[in-house]
C-alpha cells in the first residue's frame, strides 16, 4: 500500500459519492462503516509508520501542472500522523454518536467529504494542494452549520465562511509570493513545502510572508482578536459540527504554524514571539474569563476551546522541542477532550433541548454515568496529571518558560482560570439539589452514547499515563525541524533562541 | 520660425474653435467650429511632416464625417437651440481643469527618450506617403484589412439603421403591436 495516503484522502470522498445511491434508512450504518474502515486504514498507517524516521514518509508525487511546479505531493511525519489519526477517530465517533434525525443521509455524505478535506490538509506537502483542501474544508462545514444549525445558523455559517476565507486568501497571496521568490532564486517553479524549507529568505521578506500566513492561520486557530466567529459557529452548529470543528478544523491553524511559518520563516518567527505570546496570553486569560461569564454550557466549552488554543499557540512559539512537541500533543489532547465535551453537551441538549446551565442542577444524582464521564473530561480539560490534558499543557508551559518566565506565569493562570470556569459549570449543572421537575427523570447515557464516549475516555487516560508512543514520533520530527530551523536562521538572535535539544544534536545516540 | 508662428496660430485657433464646439448651444455653430478645428488639426499634421495623415484627416473628417453629421442634423431640428440640463459647471471645470493641469504638468516635464528606438523609421528622401504605404501594407496589413472590414460593417450598419423603412421603429416589435390590436379588437367585440 504505497499510496495509502491517497486512499485515506479519497476513500471517504468516493464513498461519499456512492452514498447518494444508498438507501436513506441505511445511510447511517453506511457512514459508520466507511468511517470505521477509514479509521482502520489510518491505524494501519500508524503501524507501518517508521518511528525511527523523522522525515516525510509514504511520500507520493504526481505532477499536476508541471510548468508551475504544482504537484500532487503527499507525505506524513510524526507531527501530522497523529492529527490524521485523531481526524479519522473523531469523525467515526462523531458519526456513531450523531443524534440528528433530519436528512441523515445528506449529513453522512457531507461528513465524508469533510473527512476527505481534513485528511487532505494534513497530508498535503504541496502548498497548492494544501490550500485546495484548506478551502474545500470550509464548504462542508458551512453546509453543516447552515443546514442543521440553530436559529441563527445562516448568520453563523456566513460569518464562519467569510471570516476564515478572507484570512486564507491573504495566505494564498503569501504562498504565491513564496513560489515566486523560489522561482527567482532557483529558476524553477515549485510549490512543494519541502523545497520551500530549503529557501533562505531575507528577514524583511520573512516578516511580510509571516504576516500573510499568520492571518490565514490565526483566524482559523482562532487567535484573539479574530476569535468571534467561533462562539457563533459553535453556538449554532449541531453537535457533530461542533465536535469536528473543535477537534479538527481549529487544529488546521496551529498545524499550519508548525508546518509553514516556523520552518519557513525561522527569523521572523523568533521576532514575532513576543507579539504572538502577548496575543496568546490575552487569548488565554480573556477567553477564560469570558467562558466563566457564559450561561450556556456549550458557549463555555466554545470559549474554553479558544483559551486552550492559546496554550497551543505559545507552545509553538517556545522554539524548543518541549514546547512544540507539547503543542502538537496538546492539539490531539484538545481535539479529543473538547470533542468529547461537545458531545456531552449534545447529549444533555438532546434530552432537555436547552443548554442553559440554569436549567440544570443536580444532574450527578440523576445521570451518574454521564456525570462521571463529564467529570473525567473536565479534569482532562483543566490539565490534571495522568490525563491527556496535562502532558501537553505541562510541556508547553515548560517549553515557554525558557523564553519568558513572566509570560509563562501569565499563561499558566490558565490552569487556575480553567479550573474556575470548568468547576463552575460542573457545580451549576451537576451539583446541588435537583430543582427542575423535568430533570428528575432524565435518562442516563444510552448504549450508543456510552460506546461513543468510552473510547475517548480510554484514550484520555491511556495517553495521560503512557504518552510515549505518540510523543516519541512527534518529538523526533520536531527535533528534526528544529535542527534545520537553527541551521537556516540568519539572525544571531534566532540562532540563539531556537533551541535544539542535546539528544537531537548527537546523531545516532540512543537513549 | 514659420513653424513656430504656425504652431501658435493653429493652437490658439483650435483651442478656441473646440471651446465653441463644446460650449455652444447651437448645434450648427458647434458643428461648424468642429469642422474648422479639424481643418486646422490637419494643419498640425502638415507641420509635423505627416502629409499623408493630414490629407486623410481632411478627407475623412472634414469631408466624410462632417457630411454625415450634416445629414444627420437634418433629422433633428438643428436651428433650434439645444435645451439641456448641463452638468454643474464647477464639476466640469474642476475635472477638465484638473486633467488638463496634470497632463500639462506631465508633458511639460523633461522627456527621457534615450531608450526609445524607432520601430519603423522614416527614410530620408522618401516621401511620407511612400513610407506610410510601405509600412501600412507590410507590417500593418492585417490590421489595415480588419479596419477596412470594420468600415464596411459600419457602413452597412449605418445604412440599415438610418436607411430603409425609416418611418418604422426598429426596436418596437410590430408583430406584438398587431397582436395587441387584435386583442383590442376582440375586447371591443
Amino acid at each position, binding site marked *: 500500500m504505497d499510496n495509502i495516503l491517497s486512499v485515506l484522502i479519497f476513500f471517504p470522498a468516493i464513498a461519499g459519492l456512492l452514498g447518494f445511491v444508498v438507501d436513506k434508512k441505511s445511510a447511517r450504518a453506511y457512514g459508520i462503516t466507511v468511517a470505521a474502515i477509514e479509521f482502520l486504514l489510518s491505524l494501519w498507517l500508524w503501524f507501518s509508520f517508521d518511528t525511527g524516521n523523522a522525515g516525510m514518509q509514504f511520500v507520493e508525487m504526481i505532477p499536476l501542472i508541471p510548468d508551475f511546479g504544482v504537484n500532487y505531493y503527499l507525505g506524513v511525519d510524526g507531527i501530522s500522523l497523529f492529527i490524521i489519526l485523531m481526524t479519522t477517530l473523531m469523525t467515526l465517533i462523531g458519526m456513531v454518536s450523531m443524534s440528528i434525525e433530519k436528512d441523515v443521509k445528506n449529513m453522512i455524505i457531507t461528513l465524508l467529504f469533510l473527512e476527505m478535506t481534513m485528511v487532505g490538509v494534513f497530508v498535503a506537502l504541496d502548498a497548492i494542494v494544501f490550500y485546495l483542501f484548506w478551502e474545500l474544508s470550509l464548504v462542508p462545514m458551512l453546509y453543516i452549520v447552515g443546514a442543521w444549525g440553530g436559529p441563527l445558523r445562516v448568520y453563523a455559517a456566513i*460569518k464562519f465562511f*467569510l471570516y476564515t476565507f478572507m484570512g486564507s486568501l491573504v495566505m494564498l497571496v503569501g504562498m504565491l509570493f513564496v513560489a515566486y521568490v523560489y522561482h527567482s532564486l532557483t529558476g524553477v517553479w515549485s510549490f512543494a513545502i519541502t523545497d520551500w524549507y530549503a529557501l533562505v529568505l531575507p528577514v524583511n521578506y520573512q516578516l511580510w510572508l509571516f504576516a500573510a500566513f499568520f492571518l490565514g492561520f490565526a483566524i482559523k486557530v482562532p487567535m484573539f*482578536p479574530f*476569535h*468571534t*466567529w467561533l462562539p457563533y459557529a459553535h453556538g449554532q452548529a449541531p453537535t457533530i459540527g461542533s465536535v469536528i470543528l473543535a477537534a479538527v478544523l481549529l487544529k488546521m491553524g496551529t498545524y499550519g504554524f508548525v508546518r509553514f511559518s516556523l520552518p519557513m520563516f525561522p527569523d521572523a518567527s523568533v521576532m514575532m514571539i513576543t507579539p504572538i505570546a502577548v496575543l496568546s496570553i490575552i487569548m488565554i486569560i*480573556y477567553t477564560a*474569563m*469570558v467562558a*466563566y*461569564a*457564559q450561561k450556556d454550557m456549550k458557549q463555555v466549552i466554545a470559549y474554553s476551546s479558544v483559551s486552550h488554543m492559546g496554550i497551543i499557540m505559545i507552545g509553538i512559539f517556545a522554539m524548543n*522541542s*518541549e514546547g512544540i512537541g*507539547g503543542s502538537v*500533543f496538546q492539539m490531539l489532547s484538545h481535539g479529543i477532550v473538547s470533542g468529547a465535551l461537545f458531545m456531552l453537551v449534545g447529549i444533555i441538549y438532546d434530552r432537555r433541548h436547552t443548554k442553559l446551565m440554569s436549567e440544570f442542577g443536580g444532574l*450527578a*444524582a440523576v445521570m*451518574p454515568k454521564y456525570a462521571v464521564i463529564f467529570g473525567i473530561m473536565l479534569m482532562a480539560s483543566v490539565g*490534571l*496529571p*495522568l490525563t491527556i490534558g496535562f502532558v501537553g499543557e*505541562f*510541556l508547553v*508551559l*515548560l*517549553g515557554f*518558560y525558557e523564553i519568558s*518566565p513572566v509570560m*509563562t*506565569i501569565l499563561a*499558566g*493562570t490558565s*490552569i*487556575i482560570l480553567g*479550573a*474556575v470556569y470548568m*468547576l463552575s459549570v460542573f*457545580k451549576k449543572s*451537576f*451539583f*446541588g*439539589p435537583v430543582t427542575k421537575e423535568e430533570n428528575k427523570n432524565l435518562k442516563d447515557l444510552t448504549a450508543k452514547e456510552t460506546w461513543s464516549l468510552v473510547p475517548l475516555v480510554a484514550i484520555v487516560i491511556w495517553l495521560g*499515563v*503512557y*504518552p*510515549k508512543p505518540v*510523543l*516519541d514520533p512527534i*518529538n523526533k520530527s520536531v*527535533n528534526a525541524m528544529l535542527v534545520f530551523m537553527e541551521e537556516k536562521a540568519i539572525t544571531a538572535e534566532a540562532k540563539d533562541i531556537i533551541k535544539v*535539544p542535546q539528544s537531537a544534536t548527537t546523531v545516532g545516540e540512543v*537513549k | 520660425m514659420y513653424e513656430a508662428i504656425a504652431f501658435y496660430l493653429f493652437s490658439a485657433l483650435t483651442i478656441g474653435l473646440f471651446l465653441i464646439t463644446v460650449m455652444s448651444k447651437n448645434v450648427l455653430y458647434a458643428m461648424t467650429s468642429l469642422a474648422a478645428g479639424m481643418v486646422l488639426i490637419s494643419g498640425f499634421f502638415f507641420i509635423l511632416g505627416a502629409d499623408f495623415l493630414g490629407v486623410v484627416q481632411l478627407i475623412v473628417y472634414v469631408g466624410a464625417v462632417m457630411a454625415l453629421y450634416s445629414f444627420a442634423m437634418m433629422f433633428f431640428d438643428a436651428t433650434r437651440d439645444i435645451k439641456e440640463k448641463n*452638468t454643474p459647471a464647477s464639476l466640469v471645470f474642476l*475635472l477638465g481643469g*484638473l*486633467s488638463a493641469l*496634470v497632463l500639462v*504638468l*506631465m508633458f511639460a516635464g523633461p522627456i527621457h527618450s534615450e531608450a526609445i528606438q524607432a520601430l519603423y523609421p522614416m527614410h530620408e528622401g522618401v516621401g511620407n506617403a511612400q513610407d506610410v504605404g510601405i509600412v501600412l501594407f507590410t507590417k500593418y496589413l492585417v490590421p489595415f484589412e480588419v479596419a477596412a472590414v470594420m468600415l464596411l460593417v459600419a457602413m452597412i450598419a449605418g445604412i440599415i439603421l438610418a436607411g430603409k423603412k425609416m418611418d418604422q421603429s426598429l426596436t418596437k416589435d410590430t408583430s406584438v403591436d398587431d397582436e395587441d390590436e387584435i386583442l383590442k379588437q376582440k375586447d371591443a367585440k
Partner: protein
Amino acid sequence: MEGLVYIALFAPFASSLFAALFGMSERKIFVGVVASVLLAISFVASAMLAFYVYGTGHAVHVTMMDWINAGDLRIPFGFVVDQVSVTMMTVVTLVSTIVHIYSIGYMDHDKSFNRFFSYLSAFVFSMMVLVMSDNFAGLFIGWEGVGVCSWLLVGFWYHKPDVSREENPSISPSWAANEAFIMNRIADLGMLIGLFILYWNVGSLQYDEVFAAVPFLDGTVLNAAALALFIGAMGKSAQFPLHTWLTDAMEGPTPVSALIHAATMVTAGVFLVIRANPLFSLTPEVSYFIAALGTFVAFFAASMALVNRDLKRIIAFSTLSQLGYMFAAAGLGAYWIALFHLAAHAFFKALLFLGAGNVMHAMHDELDIFKMGGLKKVMKWTYLYMGIASLALAGIPFFAGFFSKDAIIETAWNEGTIVLWAILVVTAGMTAFYSFRQVFLTFEGDERYKQYGIHPHEMYRYVLIAMSPLAVLAVVAGFGMEGFEHFVTKLLPDYHMSEHTHHIAWILGLVVLVFAVGGIALAYKKYYHGLKRDEKLENSWYYKLLANQYYIPVLYEEFISKPYAMISDAMWNKVDMKIVDATVDGIAKFLYKTGDETRKMQTGNLSNYLNWMAVGAVLFLVVAAISAAAIG
C-alpha cells in the same frame, strides 16, 4: 523489595478500582471490607519496607516506565523508598487503613457508600504516588491527584444546596470543594513554575540529580525555585493567605477530614519542604520566610480556634496551627523534627477527628459544641480518645505532641529567633485552651443536647477498636523520637541543639508546659461545669473578628470572586460582544453599506456614468503623475 514497593503503591489503587466497579450500585459492606483489607496490605508492605530500610539503611529505588519524554526532558514513573518516604508511607497507610475501617461504620447509612470507598482509596493511591515518587513531576502527579480526590470527597454530599454564609460559613459541600480545588490550583501554578526553574537550570526533575546540582546554582535561581516550590506547599498545606479552603473543606464526611485534611494531604507541603531540604537549606532567606510564615499561621489559626463553635472547624484550625509549627521547624532547618511532628500530628489529629466523627454520628450531624455537653456518659470511649488526642495536641508531657512540639519550640530558641519562640510558646498555650474548651464543652457539663431532642449513642465497637492504634500511638509515639532521629537523619540533615540550649532545655520545656497547663486550667475553669455564655464578650469586636475568621473569606469574596465574576461578565458583554465582535461585524456592515451606497451611482443616466468615468480617469492620471514624479 521491588514487589513490596508495587504492592504498597498499587493496593490502594486496586481498592479504588474495585470499589469503583460498584460505584453506582447499592451499599455493599464487602466493598468497604475489601478496601480496608487492601489498605491493610499496603500498610503491611509499607511497614516491611520501613523495616528493610531501617535494617539495611539502603533506599529502594524502582523505575516502572517512561512517562514523558520530550526534548531533553525525561520523566519516568520512578519510585524511591528511603527514610523520608517510608516514614510517610507508613503513616499514610496506617492512618488510611484505620480511616477505611472507621468509614465502614461511619458511612453505614449513606447510599453512596461504595463510591466513598473508591474516592478514599484513590486518594491514598495519589498520596502514595506523591510521597514515593523519585522526581518532582511524579510528586506533582500525586499533588494534583490528592487535590482531585479532595475535591471529590469534600463535595461528596454534592446534593446539598448552597446556603448563605451566615447559615453555613462554607456555603455548601460543592462550593467548598471548588474553593479547595481552585485555591490549590493557584498554588500549583507556583509549584509548576518551581519545576520549570529547576528543569531549565538543572536539566532534570529527578530528585537525586536536582539535589546534586543545586549547590552549583546561582543564588537568585535557588531563591526563586525555593520560593516557587514553597508557594505550591502553601496551597496544599493551607498556609496564609491560601488557608480558607481548609476549614471549608470540613463539609466533607468526617473520615475525609481526618485522613485528608488533618493527617496526610495537608502535610504534603511540609513533606515537600522536607524532601527538597538540600534546596531549602541553601536558601536561608526563603527558609526564614517559611519559618516566619509558619509561626504566624500557627498563631493566627489558633486565635480563630479560640472562639469557634463548630467542632470540626476547631480541629481544622488546630490542624492549620500545627502545620504552622511544622513549617516553622522546617524553615529553621530542623527537617527531621518537622517530619517527626508531622507523623505524631497525623496520629493524634486523625484520632481527634475520628472522635469528632463519633460525636457527629451520635449527634446526628450536629456540630455546634454549644449544643452538646455531658456526652461523656454515653460516649466514654470517644471521650477517652479525644481526651488523649487533646492532651497530645496540647503538649502535655509524655504524650506524642509533647516531644515533637517541644523540640520545635526549642529549635526556635536555639536559632536565636526569640520572637518566633515567644509566639510559638503563646500559641502552645492557646492550643491547650481551645483543645480543652472543645473537649469540655462536648463531654462535660450540662447536657444541652437534650433540648434539641437528640439521643446520642456510642459508635460501633469495631470502629472504636479500629481507632485504638491511633490512641496508643498518640500516647507512645514520642518515645520513639530518638530512634526516629537516628533513622531519618541518614537522609535528612541532622539538627542538634547547641550546648547552651541543651543546658537550659528543661527551663524552656517548663515554660511551654506552664503555658499549656495554664491553657487547660483556663478552659477547665470556664467550661468544665457547663456553658456560661458571656454576651458582652461575644459582642465585642475582637470576638466577632475571630469568629468571622478575620473576615478573610468575606474579603476574598468581595474583592476577588465578585469582581472576577463582574469583570468576566463585562469582558463578555462589553468587550467581546460590543468591541471585538462589533468591530468584525462593523467591517462587514461597512462593506455592505458601501455597496448599498455606491449602488446609487447606477442612476441609469449615461451622463452620470460619463462623469464618474471622468472622475476615475482623472484619479488615475493623478496617481500616474504622482508615481511618475516619485520615480523620476
